[in-house]
């Protein structure tokens, strides 16, 4: 007997939830907002799951719906992102740069990404996830040429925060 739509969704979503967690970590600054965004993405993905026909990979589709929810639909409950002076962050990052355990680098990377605007976050995230420019342009609705140019700018901004 074939699985119900709900069961299929639960299988797909559970096995790909790490993508959603990464997006939540980029777009929120505390655990409560993280959980709220995770829940909203779950609702949006399920709401549209019947439309997903399997002509693309579920994960590809999940990137799009999750990023859309984070960028356009989600409102943080605690609005203010702790705004620190960029040079303070740079100092902190520099101080830990010598400790090159990947865990620390990862923390620094997430910290730096959080200081980009929402669109640059999406660009950098898709780069880190090894998405092609074609996929990036399809996801965001911009031209491939522009995706390339703006990606370089977003990466430059990130580098400056990581290594001023």
């Amino acid at each position, binding site marked *: 007997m074939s699985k119900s739509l709900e069961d299929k969704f639960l299988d797909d979503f559970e096995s790909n*939830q790490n993508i959603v967690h990464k997006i939540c*970590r980029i777009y929120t600054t505390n655990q409560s907002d993280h959980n709220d965004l995770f829940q909203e993405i779950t609702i949006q993905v399920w709401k549209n799951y019947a439309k997903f026909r399997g002509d693309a990979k579920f994960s590809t589709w999940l990137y799009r719906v999750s990023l859309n*929810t984070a960028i356009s639909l989600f*409102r943080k409950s605690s609005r203010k992102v702790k705004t620190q002076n960029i040079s303070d962050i740079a100092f902190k990052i520099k101080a830990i740069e010598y400790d090159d355990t990947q865990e620390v680098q990862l923390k620094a990377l997430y910290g730096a990404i959080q200081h980009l605007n*929402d*669109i640059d976050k999406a660009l950098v995230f898709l780069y880190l996830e090894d998405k092609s420019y074609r996929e990036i342009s399809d996801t965001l609705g911009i031209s491939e040429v*522009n995706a390339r140019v703006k990606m370089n700018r977003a990466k430059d901004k990130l580098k400056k925060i990581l290594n001023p």
Partner: protein
Amino acid sequence: MDVLEKYKEAWDNQPENSNKVSKSEIYKMMKSKSSSIVKWIFIIGLIEFILIGSSFFLFDIEKSIEAYESIGLNKYFMHFNTKAGLCIFLYFLYKFYANFRSISTTENTKSLMDQILNTRKTVRNYVVINLSYLTIFYLIALVLMIKKQFADLSTVQTIGVAVASLVALAVMLAVIWLIYQLLYGILLNKLNKNYKDLAKLEE
């Protein structure tokens, strides 16, 4: 080595999130209610339609037409106005619902933002049309009233009545405008900013 390369390596090797969510938790979440801004735009938009639209049903139109007639407004003109108002209301309500239905998170980010902002614009246009209409109507009624009912007032008194009425109108419009800015400003602040940032990418 590019400075980002080593961070990218750390990204690629990152462990799974420690807050792994179980299937039963996902099940609970997928059945819960959305609190997205699209839902709020729909609810607030609907309230606006109900508030403005209810005037067609709440007020005794025949009675108000009589009142307007007494200050010199044509009865047929008033009947036409009421019917036209109802048609505009139904048209915008349909458009609002159609726009809302077309919002889909499976579209690309740019199209999704366009769809959300279009839904919001429909309501805004409806409110602007109604307020403009109200203003014009108010001004016509004011002129007629001054001519007919305050004919025996002195010029200074007439100017006083006119200025007081205009100030009242301006205050009412300003209050509505402020509430509007506050409501949608809070709701769409982030979306507008992201929309601008995305539009900048296409420049």
